[in-house]
């Protein structure tokens, strides 16, 4: 392929390109468009992927909520329409029987799902906030952070039913003076005094939750609201590689067993599987990437075929010229290489321009959505190997398609090309 480094080769290619300028440009646009679509779509898919990942970051992507509802089927002498109350004691049994569970946190709450929240007072400032009774495990499942200087509820808080609380950013803003340090200060919840031990940084993640939420130890909650051993809902997270759908089934069947719910009852327990939602979203994004791959490939293919077509026409038009070259000593191989290089060159240039344009577009979208926190779109990158893959594909296709006009050029016999009319 020493032709690649010959001025004549390039002079040749530019000669023939400039002879058919409009047509060349139109066909190059075909390939350019293909790679452009491919890169922008897969970059966008990646951006969404990153965006969703960021959106789900506040909560373990394999976590699961389960709560009691009303049964719909009679079972073991119990009638239907029986209300199910989950108990703290369920935790040990679930842990034992569903080994895929890494963390499980029983939770109680007042102030969401229709119940009234806690009346919180600090000096002259008051407010109503949702109050959560939490186990220390909670912070391991929800990846929301407690600000420096503070801490979350720990085992000792539980053992001694301490009156301590972790408040939200909004609570902080509404109950404290600007710049005031909340840690170690006191607030009163439903007329009981609590010591603030931390402020949590709220990240919108799965469903409910608010930047005003106040967390207190589960046992303290029990005393405050008289909730006994009842659990509002369980929040749990499975080990990383566990199948979240299967885990949900297992947990439910254990709970049905404990609470005498008919195994076929779909109503007795409610569940929200964040892991499944997460996976479905990922599947959607993956589907999008796949779609963009297919669309891009087809468009690139169409573009490359267009280039092959142009070259075929140009070979026809240049029959005489090729005949002259053959008479002057060009071997069939040299003629063929010339056309192949032309094909690859056109494809490659079109491809590179497409990649550059797509990069600019992706960059602009990223820049434009940078400040939109609600829009799940972050860093729309296309892996380098995809780009090189696409380039490689184009070179191979350009080569393959170029074979057709090249073969046609080979068939030109100088004697026929040169015959004077």
């Amino acid at each position, binding site marked *: 392929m020493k032709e690649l480094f*010959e001025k004549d080769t390039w002079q040749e290619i530019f000669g023939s390109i400039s002879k058919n300028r409009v047509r060349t440009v139109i066909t190059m646009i075909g390939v350019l468009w293909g790679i452009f679509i491919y890169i922008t779509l897969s970059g966008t898919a990646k951006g969404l992927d990153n965006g969703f990942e960021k959106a789900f970051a506040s909560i373990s992507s394999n976590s699961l909520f389960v709560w009691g509802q009303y049964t719909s089927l009679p079972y073991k002498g119990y009638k239907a329409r029986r209300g199910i109350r989950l108990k703290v004691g369920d935790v040990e049994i679930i842990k034992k029987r569903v080994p895929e569970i890494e963390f499980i946190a029983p939770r109680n709450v007042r102030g969401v799902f229709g119940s009234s929240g806690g009346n919180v007072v600090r000096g002259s400032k008051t407010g109503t906030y949702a109050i959560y009774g939490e186990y220390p495990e909670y912070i391991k499942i929800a990846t929301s952070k407690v600000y420096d200087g503070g801490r979350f509820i720990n085992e000792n808080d539980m053992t001694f039913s301490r009156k301590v609380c972790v408040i939200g950013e909004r609570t902080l803003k509404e109950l404290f003076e600007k710049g005031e340090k909340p840690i170690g200060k006191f607030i009163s919840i439903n007329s009981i005094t609590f010591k603030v031990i931390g402020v949590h940084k709220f990240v919108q993640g799965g469903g409910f939750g608010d930047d005003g939420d106040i967390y207190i130890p589960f046992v303290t909650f029990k005393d405050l609201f008289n909730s006994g051993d009842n659990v509002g809902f369980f929040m749990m997270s499975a080990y990383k590689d566990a199948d979240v759908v299967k885990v949900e089934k297992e947990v439910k069947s254990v709970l049905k067993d404990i609470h005498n719910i008919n195994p076929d009852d779909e109503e007795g327990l409610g569940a929200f599987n964040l892991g499944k939602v997460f996976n479905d979203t990922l599947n959607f994004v993956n589907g999008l990437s796949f779609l963009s791959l297919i669309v891009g490939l087809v468009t690139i293919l169409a573009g490359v075929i267009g280039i092959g077509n142009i070259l075929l026409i140009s070979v026809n038009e240049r029959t005489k010229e090729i005949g002259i*070259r053959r008479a002057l*000593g060009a*071997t*069939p191989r040299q003629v063929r290489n010339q056309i192949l290089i032309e094909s690859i060159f056109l494809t490659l240039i079109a491809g590179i321009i497409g990649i550059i344009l797509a990069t600019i577009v992706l960059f602009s979208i990223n820049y434009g959505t940078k400040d939109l926190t609600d829009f799940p779109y972050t860093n729309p990158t296309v892996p380098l190997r995809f780009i090189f893959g696409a380039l490689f594909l184009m070179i191979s296709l350009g080569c393959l398609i170029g074979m057709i006009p090249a073969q046609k050029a080979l068939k030109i016999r100088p004697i026929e090309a040169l015959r*004077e009319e």
Partner: protein
Amino acid sequence: MINIKDLHKSYKMGSNSLHVLKGINFSVKEGELVAIMGSSGSGKSTLLNIIGMLDNYDKGSYELDDILIKDLNETKAANYRNKFLGFVFQSFNLINYKSAVDNVILPLYYQGIKRKEREKTALDYLDNVGLKNWASHLPSELSGGQKQRVAIARAMVSKPKVLLADEPTGALDSNTSSEVMSLIQKINNSGKTILVVTHEEDIAKMCKRIVKLKDGVIVEDKKIKQKVL
């Protein structure tokens, strides 16, 4: 230099076959300047194309410089053409988007000669045909005579053993024809073997030998006193 014995050539067209050359016996020694004449359709171009390895023949033999030229494959024919033969055509056959010098360079390019050297050699040959100042011009900017001189420079640049010219003056007026023929004589005087196909008497008279073709055979072959320009 050229040795042709009992050469036959037919063109097959469907079931028909047109017998164009019917036993040509013909030899050319080094340094000759031969005019090939004959009426239209008598097979002049066919003979020249066979000599130029642009076409095959059916029967007989053709030797160029003691090498038997028969049934060459395309690559070998291309290499021989490149090394041994120079072509000049009636319609010049320059590549229209290449400048004069780039046209002259082409045979050297196919010989694999380095670019610097190619350019220098090509310019020297353009100088020989008096067109050094036109080197960077496109064919469309040249007159017919100039184009033919570029074509001659291109044919000569690879130092061929034989120069083959098929009606080199066919598209030129008589003044420019003389210019071109004078150039051909000059090249011949430096020792080059040249075959010129023509059907103009006065062009033929500028050669040293006239071969007349009729109905596929040579009917006359005579040395003449050259009209020197």
